[in-house]
């Protein structure tokens, strides 16, 4: 539990300079994600999932992972299907609200293969925020009176001023955070359009950070919108260009969800269980060399419609 001291030591030893960190997904994952790591993933159920990075992690067969994410989604679904996860720290795991509970998730957890350490949504968000702020805990009234502290071992604390009882959530320092954003420069300065979820905090909480971006932009674009930068370069180890990196999920301003793609997967798994999921992995992950080969498999016409729709939502077209 002295993770704080360890995490601070890693920060102190960083090369904090503004150097070029552009690399391929293959290289970024190989360098910064290891067997047994605690990996934080961006997004909350929908929008800006680090799907391209997750598919690369599966291709590289990185094992015994602990996944830390506020609300898990198709990213964790595929990692669970691939059998790479030993523990999930989260408030919720499904594929997406419309598709109900994931069969793969149930199977893995009900068999005891995977531990699901559950927090409330605010609870897991504050675990990242505590780490981001460099303190060992943060207080909240959430989870009082519930049974969550019995399983996640959250401790209570008394406010020294008011005597009020609160839950102290412990800081969570992931080994690596993988965050999909709309725009980043080659140094790792990252701009998120739309909801940020807990992503600025997970970047600050983690010991290492991989940014995957829809577009790599010139640093002058960052400087012109510097008040939208939510992750500064000195936290970042690797920057990867990953257009449609959240596919088949959505990305604010860039594309809406590829509903049909996910629906096909869910229906296949309903029938064929784990075997169907593995067939999906064979086709879309193991069977392709990289993210760009994956994209070749997506019908362009469908993609264009999703792009149009995302712009309509972003700009409030009627």
């Amino acid at each position, binding site marked *: 539990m002295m993770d704080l001291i360890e995490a601070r030591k890693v920060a102190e030893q960083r090369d904090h300079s503004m150097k070029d960190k552009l690399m391929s997904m293959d290289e970024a994952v190989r360098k910064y994600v290891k067997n047994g790591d605690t990996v934080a993933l961006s997004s*909350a159920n929908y929008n800006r999932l680090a799907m391209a990075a997750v598919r690369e992690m599966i291709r590289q067969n990185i094992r015994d992972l602990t996944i830390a994410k506020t609300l898990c989604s198709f990213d964790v679904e595929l990692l669970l299907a691939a059998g790479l996860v030993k523990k999930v720290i989260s408030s919720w795991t499904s594929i997406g609200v419309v598709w109900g509970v994931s069969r793969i998730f149930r199977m893995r957890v009900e068999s005891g293969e995977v531990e699901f350490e559950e927090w*409330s949504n605010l609870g897991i*968000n504050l675990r990242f925020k505590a780490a981001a702020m460099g303190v060992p805990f943060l207080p909240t009234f*959430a989870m*009082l009176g519930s*049974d969550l502290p019995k399983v996640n071992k959250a401790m209570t604390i008394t406010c020294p001023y008011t005597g*009020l009882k609160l839950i102290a959530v412990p800081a969570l320092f992931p080994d690596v955070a993988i965050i999909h954003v709309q725009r980043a420069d080659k140094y790792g300065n990252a701009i998120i359009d739309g*909801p940020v979820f807990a992503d600025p905090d997970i970047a600050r909480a983690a010991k290492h950070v991989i940014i995957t971006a829809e577009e790599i932009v010139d640093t002058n674009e960052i400087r012109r919108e510097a008040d939208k930068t939510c992750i500064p370069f000195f936290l970042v180890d690797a920057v990867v260009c990953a257009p449609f990196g959240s596919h088949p999920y959505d990305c604010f301003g860039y594309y809406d969800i590829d509903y049909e793609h996910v629906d096909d997967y869910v229906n296949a798994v309903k029938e064929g269980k784990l075997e169907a999921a593995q067939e999906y992995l064979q086709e879309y992950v193991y069977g392709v060399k990289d993210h760009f080969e994956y994209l070749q498999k997506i019908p362009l016409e469908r993609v264009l419609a999703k792009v149009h729709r995302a712009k309509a939502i972003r700009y409030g077209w009627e």
Partner: protein
Amino acid sequence: MTELRYTGAEIAAVVAARSVEDNKVVFTGTGLPLMAMALAQRLYAPNLVIVFEGGQVQPILSGKYTPFSPNDIRAGYKAVMLASTTDVLCLMQRGHVDYGFISGAQIDQYGNVNTSFIGDYRKPKVRLPGSGGANDIASLASKVIIITRHEKRRFVEKVDFITSPGNVDEKGREYHGLIFGKPLLIITGLAVMDYHPELKRVRLKALHPGVTLEQVLDNMGFKPIIPDKIEVTKPPTEEELRILREMDPEGRWVEHPK
């Protein structure tokens, strides 16, 4: 006057729409409660404010962009603010969320909800999706409304696991440190329930038109407190049903009559 046909989901949505005061902030997920709040905005509470856990404040609920999830990009359509999740959850902790909606796989006689697991934690019989924002809503919103199907397996004497606290137990919320907020209503397709102020237990409040007390009790695993006077829900109006169905023509979120 011809009798209107409607489903349990529809009357639940209608009752929910009538249950919120105007000029207040509602924290809701998608699906039925969102449709209910959109109905409320149209008929009873034009200045109701919608906040989603994805950080979206006052989006426009357009049929064209009905969100699948409080976190998808549609949920932010024309919102006036797109904040962080922690920000909106803390605004709730600060007291700015007047109504919160949750549902539940299991609900017990103190209004506690289980959406975590049934059986043993490390090897559960059934693993459910988990709290998500439900525990936060139940702990931090000023008034909490549960909307759920009225099924025997859902209403249990004691939940296997308290994911989201109602009154917790006979000692009540404050004893456990929950100094804010309170469970307000449970709305189902058959009835409306509230809570006995001293006993802290679920109490029947109203039966929907045509529903009998026996029907309600037969579909519950525990016996709610029965008050001296049980109300009867005012039936859904033609207008209420028309708007609900217009907003959701396929009955995807709020089931239509067959």
